[in-house]
């Protein structure tokens, strides 16, 4: 069959579009690396962990410890996923196995609406409602705990929607078999449904974790932004993402470069999690 010339132009322009879209990630990585180089060579990678504190714009006396921010990012992510993981999965179980069809549909729309609310609105809501509540427990209010709560609230919809998709993929035969055996609802879900949907549920948790690590606005607005390793849930903290958002505006030279280093670190964490997620997804598809 003869290939028409308009078709040839079309195919090549489509290829060009895909090549552009496909190489964006590489472009982003290149720029992050390029801008970080000065930070890594002039400051030295060891100082990100060993400096006594974060005082980035004081000339020769600058200190570049990223430890408080890394600690804050890890603590808030773990806290959020510990809360949002179980709640999200159970909400999906509710939607799939407990709620009557009409209620399930209504509940699903609520979760979808929550997923569409912008992070800055979550942050604002946390600032005006949660922070004063936490302040009553223990001042100052803007704290790791407030950050964990807002983050958890943000990632519950992500976890719930993906977990629901995973539960839907459990073969109906499994459920019929469990019923035929006279298993209770609890036993069926825990012993039959969860093992069968394990990979899919894993994907839900991993994607939730990715959102929590990368979230900026919500934690920026409720965490207090103090660069100290937190010793309790009520201490104010500053995450890696919030640190970039707060300081890129005025950072110059090494300071700016170190901010790009922390961006690069975030990017590497995300790439690793994407790999884990794809592994799980492939296994979910095979199961």
């Amino acid at each position, binding site marked *: 069959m003869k290939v*028409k010339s*308009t078709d040839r132009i*079309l*195919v090549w*322009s*489509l290829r*060009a579009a*895909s090549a552009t*879209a*496909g190489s*964006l*990630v590489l472009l*982003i990585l290149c720029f*992050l690396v*390029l801008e970080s180089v000065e930070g890594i060579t002039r400051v030295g990678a060891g100082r990100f962990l060993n400096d006594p504190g974060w005082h980035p714009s004081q000339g020769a006396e600058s200190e570049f410890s990223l430890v408080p921010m890394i600690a804050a990012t890890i603590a808030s992510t773990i806290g959020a996923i510990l809360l949002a993981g*179980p709640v999200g999965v*159970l909400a999906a*179980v509710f*939607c799939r*196995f*407990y*709620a009557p069809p009409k209620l399930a549909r209504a*509940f699903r729309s*609520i*979760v979808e*609406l*929550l997923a*569409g*609310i*912008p*992070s*800055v*609105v979550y*942050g*604002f*809501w946390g*600032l*005006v409602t949660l922070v004063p509540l936490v302040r009553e427990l223990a001042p100052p209010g803007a704290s790791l705990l407030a950050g964990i709560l807002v983050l958890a*609230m943000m990632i519950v919809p992500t976890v*719930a929607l993906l977990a629901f998709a995973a539960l839907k993929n459990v073969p109906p035969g499994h*459920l*019929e078999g469990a*019923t035929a*055996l006279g*298993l*209770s*609802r*609890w036993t*069926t879900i*825990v012993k039959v449904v969860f093992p069968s949907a394990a990979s899919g549920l894993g994907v839900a948790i991993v994607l939730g974790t990715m959102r929590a*690590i*990368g979230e*900026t606005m919500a934690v920026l*607005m409720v965490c207090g932004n103090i660069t100290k390793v937190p010793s309790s849930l009520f201490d104010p903290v500053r995450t890696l993402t919030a640190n*970039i958002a707060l300081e*890129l505006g005025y950072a110059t030279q090494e300071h700016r470069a170190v901010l790009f280093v922390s961006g690069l670190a*975030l*990017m590497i964490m*995300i790439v690793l999690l994407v790999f884990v997620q*794809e592994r799980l997804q492939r296994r979910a598809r095979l199961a």
Partner: protein
Amino acid sequence: MPEPTRPLVSGATLGAGRHGASQNNLADTVFGVLVWGSALAVTAGFLWLVGEIVVSGFGAISWEFLTSEPASSGRAGGISTILVATLGILGICLAVSIPLGLGTALFLSEFSQGENRMGRFVRASLDVLAGVPSIVFGLFGNAFFCVALGFGFSILSGGLTLACMVLPILIRSIELGLRAVPNDYRVAAAALDLSKSRMIVRVLLPAAAPGLIAGLLLGIGRATAETAALIFTSGYVDRMPESVFDSGRALSIHIYDLAMNVPGGEANAYGTALVLVGLLLVINFVATHLVERFVSGRIQSA
């Protein structure tokens, strides 16, 4: 996907045999309470959040609020300049991401069947792109568009940064839309000796239109909700932008700035948040309904 037969066991009948296994009764009850509790917690959180924004934001919104310029750092006045800047950023974002996204989605769904190496590379890199945190897009946009290309803090830089950010979601949903078009259409077009390009323009795109629009709306929603990627690309000047090279403040950044940096800006922050949430709810609602209508329509005709 059409449901082949009604499943024998649905949620309602699951565990019908629980009376036979009485030692599980307690565990069953506890688990049920946890499940209902989680659902209630999610619903309560939703009502609390939306209720707070609607109740406190409603008073701030008026025609006046939407059409007048912000005064005294946003404490007084309205959000007209903010709306214009948001539209400008969105316009740039769509002008770049639609052709790129449509082209890539067409390539992935129509020209890279099977295990094509380029298709696999593009897909993998889009998967990573979808996970990149928005603040990292902000870093990249600042280094690339603002500094390296010399656009400075401008609506153009912000729009281009957002274009990179919405590409994965745009491509994924457009591709889904294209794949939902039955293969018969393509075969019939080939039998009529239509060229590939005519087939795409005359058959594929019209048939997939609702899916494409839904994908577009999801992209718009994502772009409108974004804040962190814009702080260091489009900036936060709240004057009326005169060209795409001017800095402009998006709705989401206005909320952030009023809440964090402007004492006494809370009332207008609520108002702006209500406008933003309202816009997004409408966009997402229309998008999901288009998708559902589209998918069920396909199944009936196939």
